């Protein structure tokens, strides 16, 4: 199994540009999550989804949008990139509510200049 696949692994954006971070899982997990990791700050939840067609905001949703049209895919959209969005982004998925833990992708390092 591939698990959780994130693309791209690295990206440099100019201020004001937009992009979509892709996330796909092949484990038939209902729950999917997007986190961002800033130095010394741990991981913070941006958005999550409990199933196809259902998404909800996490702790730091401003500047981001998500959609969940299929069980497998959970893309994260950045509109009008700002330097404050420079971070490492992780997608994760879990069976049910994740009480057995999450499976993480390998992350995307995004730099906004």
């Amino acid at each position: 199994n591939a698990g959780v696949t994130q693309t791209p692994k690295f990206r440099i954006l100019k201020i004001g540009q937009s992009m979509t971070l892709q996330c796909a899982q092949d484990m038939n997990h209902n729950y999917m999550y997007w986190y961002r990791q800033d130095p010394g700050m741990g991981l913070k939840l941006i958005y999550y989804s409990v199933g196809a067609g259902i998404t909800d905001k996490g702790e730091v949703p401003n500047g981001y949008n998500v959609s969940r049209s299929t069980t497998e895919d959970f893309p994260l959209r950045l509109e009008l990139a700002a330097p404050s969005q420079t971070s490492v982004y992780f997608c994760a998925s879990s069976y049910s509510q994740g009480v057995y833990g999450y499976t993480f992708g390998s992350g995307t390092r995004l730099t906004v200049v």
Partner: protein
Amino acid sequence: AQTVTQSQPEMSVQEAETVTLSCTYDTSESDYYLFWYKQPPSRQMILVIRQEAYKQQNATENRFSVNFQKAAKSFSLKISDSQLGDAAMYFCAYRSARLSDMRFGAGTRLTVKP
């Protein structure tokens, strides 16, 4: 809101010795789950160990064990017989049984000296 605190930004241990990483959390709930994740330089988040709050017995996975003190809201990770491959960032995480959000601490960077 639940918060997770890791008070040790960095720790160091000699190869083959034992090290304990600290974690405390704040919650008013009685049903929840606690985790330790390892993040090596590859950036991949790897689940190390998991504890259910309603179980008094401390979880153990090979060289990794926890000391779960529910009343004190403490969840420390003990690594025995440390190996060079244990060098990584370690994150403590809290997951409510009710809410759809896993909260992470700021992490502890573990260095293993040969």
